[in-house]
Each structure stands twice: as structure tokens, then as C-alpha cells.
């Protein structure tokens, strides 16, 4: 999963930005995120197109403090370490 890292101050974002909100730099580089820690997980019944019908959304934090969402069909609890990959819909995670 790709995050965006400010080349000047190293702030990381899941949301691509034109300007770093921390230092004002306009230069970013892609960072491959493969691990994180679950902040929380929500089991979602009514899912949006084109996603599968039944999954949990995990809000996670990277080792550098940036946060993002990924899907899972596993049981993941707050504080669990997760491993992140990408499938046809987007980022998915499993317990590490």
C-alpha cells in the first residue's frame, strides 16, 4: 500500500496532497506500507460498490504515525499488529 512522504520533513500521508500540511513543501515520494497497528476495527454489513459484501474496516497506524484504512475478513482488535497487502479493490490486512 502506497503512502506519500514529504521529502523535506518526512511527514507521511495516506491522502495525496499537493502541499505538506506540516512544513509547506511540495515534494513527496511514495512509501510502501506493509505493516501497522490497528487503532480499531468495524464490522460493516452495508458495504459500498464495488467492494465485497461482508468485511471489517480497520483503521491502522504506521510506525511513523500516519493512519489509513484497510479491509479484512479476519478478527483484528485494537492494538493488534497487522500485515498489509493490496488486492483488486485496495489495501487488505491480516494479523501479523
Amino acid at each position, binding site marked *: 500500500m502506497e503512502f506519500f512522504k514529504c521529502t523535506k520533513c518526512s511527514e507521511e500521508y*495516506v491522502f495525496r496532497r499537493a502541499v505538506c500540511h506540516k512544513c509547506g513543501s511540495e515534494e513527496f515520494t511514495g512509501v510502501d506500507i506493509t505493516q501497522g497497528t490497528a487503532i480499531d476495527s*468495524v464490522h*460493516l454489513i452495508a458495504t459500498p460498490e464495488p467492494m465485497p459484501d461482508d468485511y471489517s474496516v480497520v483503521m491502522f497506524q504506521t510506525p511513523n504515525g500516519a493512519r489509513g484504512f484497510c479491509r479484512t475478513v479476519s478478527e483484528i482488535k485494537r492494538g493488534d499488529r497487522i500485515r498489509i497487502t493490496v488486492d483488486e*479493490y485496495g489495501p487488505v490486512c491480516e494479523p501479523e
Partner: protein
Amino acid sequence: MVSIAAANFARFGKREEDIFSIASESALPLLDKFRDSIDFVVVSNSYSGEFNDISGLNNLLTTHLGMDSVPSLRVDNTSGSGGSAVLVAKSLVASGEAQNVLVIGAEKMTGYPTKRSTRIIASLLPPEERRGGPSLPSLAAFMTRSYIREFSPTRESIARVAVKNHHNGSLNPYAHFQAEVTLEKVMTSKVIADPLRIFEYCPVSDGAVSLLVTSDDNAASFGSKAVRITGTGASSGVSSITSRESLVSIDSVKESAVKAFRSAGKTPGDMDIAELHDMASILEIVESEDVGFFRKGEGWKALESGETTIEGRLPINTSGGLNSKGHPIGASGVAQSAEIFLQLTGQAGKRQVKNASTGFSVSMAGFGNNSTSFVYEVA
């Protein structure tokens, strides 16, 4: 000073008619009285492209209403469109650009599978976050879980928002849901995004509402009971939910309320009634704290003690709120202003609050991506 001089609803719910018919149902009674005086039309609508295959709704609608020569514009600010539209109308009158503005909030959303509607509404999230699978309901679930961890309400105390608002909706002939629900029914209903259940979310609705926004002087000449808009506040927050510092507070709601109260020279304690953006049960509680009605973490206690019922110290969402009145997205913020107008002019029927002379509303876009707050006073 700018006032609201008239308001009219087309019932919210699942409607068979198209968006033009629904919008006209709300606007024609006002046009019957004020047609020759209206010199601007502001249409609040967010998803006519996605749900109805219509763009340029404002011009199509003015033609439909026989108002081809009246200038118009469409305001799209997702769930906050209505509040933004009222703010635009107020600004048009205050600046002298227009004298009498017809605001029409309208949306036609039903008829699609839930999965499609969920996708359309989730399109306001940053694309990178959407790929991770969240929906708007799931964000409310994250908020609920964080709120429970931080402030220890019982799960039932949050669900009571739905019980209160369905009761209020049962007294509102324009509401989508016309029946009360018990706490047990809410707590055993289908889970949508754990832990929130279906009765705790607003339905997908069709509906429309129209307002006449004008100057105090014009309102007096119309012979109408009027409600002054004495305070306004618009504020934006970060669109990326995962970039926010707190999951139990919404910065744009807080800041817009501070601005509105400051510009009105009032405090939250001066308010007699309020309409909050309860897309999910937890949002009414969080917003009631963020706008300053209750201390952080204590909104649920006020709800449990009955302070926010129609008979309570500060009735919240007497209309039934988005939760029961429904949430035709472009209409919702306009409907909040209309409900305050009806309450403060003594026209709210079975849900009338006694002796109310001041009111507050907050119209929220997305999941707090931006907000517009208003303070109202009897003219």
C-alpha cells in the same frame, strides 16, 4: 438584518414522483404568495447527477416553476448543501444583490440498491481512503467505539437518540418515519456497522423544502411572521478522517458554532431549541457537546435525563432529525432552518415547543468536512 419569512415542506420519504414534482410541491405554495417578489432562486442539491442523471438542476427547476427570468444557482456541498444554500441566500440579501430569495432544498435518492447508494455517498471521501473500504456509516461506528472507550456511556444511552427522534418524527407529518420505536427494538435491529444498528442511522430519502429568505423590512411588508438569522458561522476541517486528531469531536462543528454564537452575541445557554446533524445516533451526542450545549463526554447524560426531549430544557431535533425525518441530502440543512422557523413562529403543530424564541442549527458536510451553523431569533 436577514429573515426567514416562509417555509414549506414536501413530505420526506420514499416518493414515486421525480425531483421536479417533489421540489415543486414544496415551492408552489410560496410562489402562490410571493412569486412576483422573488428575484433569486438558490437550489440546494448534491446528487442529481448521480441519482437522477440531471445537471444544471437550478435552471431546469426555474423553468419548471415558470421562473425563467429569475437568476438561480445550485449549491452542492454534500450533506451540508442546505446550510450552505441558506448562507448563500442570506449573503445575497445582506449584500443587496437580491431582495427576496427562494431557497429550494431537494433530493431524489431512492430506487437504487443500498450498495450503489452507499458508493455514491462515500464518493466524498478521499480516494485513497475509500480504497480501504469505509462507508459513511462505518465512520460513525468508529466514532461510537471511541466515544464509548473514552466516556463510558452505556450502549443503550447512545441508542436513545433514535428513540427520542423517532418519537419526534411521529409528531411531524413531513417526516420519513411516522412511527415510534422502543429502545428494545432499536437494540435488536440489524447491525449496519458494528456497533450501530439500522434505527440509529438516517434512511435514504427523497424530499424537498422551500424557504423565503428576505430582509426584515420586506418580511414586515409581506405581513408574515418572521425569524431573524442573527448569527452565522462556516468552518472547514480536514477531509481525511484518518488525519484527524480526535474521533470523538468534530472541529468544523465546533468552530462554526463558535462563529455563529459570536456573530449573534449569544451563547449556547441562550438557545431554546436546536437542530443537529444526526446522520447517526452518536453524531447528535457529539455535536451537542461540540457546539457547547453540554460538556465533552456528557451529552449522553443530558439525553438520558430527558433534557433534550420536546418537553426538556433544550429540545434537540424536534423535527425528528435526519434520523427520523429523513436525509434527502440537499434538503436536510434547509429543513433544519425550516423547522426552527416553524417552531419560533408557533407553527410546529403537535411537536411545538412552548415559548421558544431562539434557535440553533448546524448543517454538516460529509463526516464533518465542513459545517455551517446558524443562530435564529424571533423577529
